[in-house]
């Protein structure tokens, strides 16, 4: 009994998560459709322009969208960049919808997009930032053992925007945004117990749900 209680407590510690608030928004500019054999691709704006969208966030949205629906295909970002190298690299990809005609005037690119039925390009911008942090946590170890004491907390904001571009029409058909704020903390009396607000994974979940719902009409 004692062992099983300990296991439950240990397991529960890992389930404790901090509180977070999620807000998602959607804006549709023009009518659009997508069919089962057509694809979308996600691309983040370049760090050359100061954008810092994390690679793991892009991977999370890619995998989340492909798990949530089977109404259309999603081509993994890296595969897309390799197939269309060097036209969608961080320093060469169109950064705004106004840059699209420059790239799409190249027949090789246009024909390959059409051959692979890649209809929409979703440009992701945004990042997760720590706004404020406070508290103190100190740990010490000696021959008789060790431990931590103190309390630390911090606020994170994950703010991401997905701009959906129609590659055949060369227009932006809409925008989806996800904004998640949350407070994480680590109280420690001998053992530190992290209570983390998973703002980035919540933003990934919120944004991918909203993108799927956007294409579901």
């Amino acid at each position, binding site marked *: 009994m004692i062992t099983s209680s300990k296991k439950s407590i240990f397991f529960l510690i890992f389930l404790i998560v901090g509180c977070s608030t999620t807000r998602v928004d959607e804006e549709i500019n023009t009518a659009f459709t997508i069919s089962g054999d057509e694809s979308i691709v996600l691309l983040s704006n370049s760090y050359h322009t100061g954008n810092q969208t994390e690679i793991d966030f892009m991977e999370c949205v890619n995998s989340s969208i492909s798990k949530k629906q089977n109404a259309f295909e999603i081509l993994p970002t890296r595969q897309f960049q390799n*197939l269309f190298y060097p036209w969608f690299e*961080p*320093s*060469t990809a169109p950064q705004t919808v106004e840059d699209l005609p420059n790239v799409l005037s190249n027949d090789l690119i246009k024909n*390959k997009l059409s051959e692979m039925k890649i209809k929409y390009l979703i440009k992701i911008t945004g990042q997760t930032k720590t706004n404020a942090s406070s508290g103190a946590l100190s740990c010490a170890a000696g021959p008789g053992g060790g431990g*931590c004491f103190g309390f630390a907390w*911090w606020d994170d904001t994950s703010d991401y925007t997905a701009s959906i571009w129609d590659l055949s029409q060369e227009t932006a058909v809409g925008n989806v945004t996800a904004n998640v704020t949350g407070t994480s903390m*680590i109280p420690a009396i001998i053992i*530190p117990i992290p209570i983390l607000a998973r703002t*980035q994974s919540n933003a990934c979940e919120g944004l991918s749900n909203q993108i799927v719902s956007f294409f579901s009409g």
Partner: protein
Amino acid sequence: MVRMNSAVKKIILLQSLFLIGCGAQNLVIDTIIPSPLVAKNENITVRLMFDEKLQNFIFTPEELQKKEAPVQISFSDTQVKLFQNIFSSFFVLDNSDKDDTPRTNNLNINVKLDKFEYLTPQMAANQKYSVWFKYNIQILNANNQPIDNWMITGYGEQETGAFQDNEAFSRAIQIALRDTGANLSIKTQDEIVNIGNSIG
């Protein structure tokens, strides 16, 4: 996916100090750049010439850099492969040294590494590695008369994040090489008509 504050990072850093020894490390760069999606001009044959330093470039940090990043970087033939891959997508490459079938070249291209620079998180007081390459590329006609001279740069950055330090550094170098390939492809695409005109 989980954000950590400085307290958590300090705990992890403290733990890692017990696990990692000190001393210079060797970083081997071996990256594959995709073939560019461009039209090949089968009428132009090019002979590539590489600066000796570039062929098996081994970067050894200077005394000042050793304190920040005591890493020796071995590029082996990665840079040579990068330029061969890009130029072979635009032109026919003359490999007569290898296959003993001499061709009449229209162009000679001389590639030289001008600069390789980097910043570590310690140097820049941030959480990322930044890497720059700068190459000098001379375009010469069959008689070795200069036609054009290009400065091609490549930049890459990688946050340390969950990576071990050397892995983040290695990724930043690979991103910078990939960026070099992208910039070179765009430049060649822009200049290919002028090059064709200048050799008749």
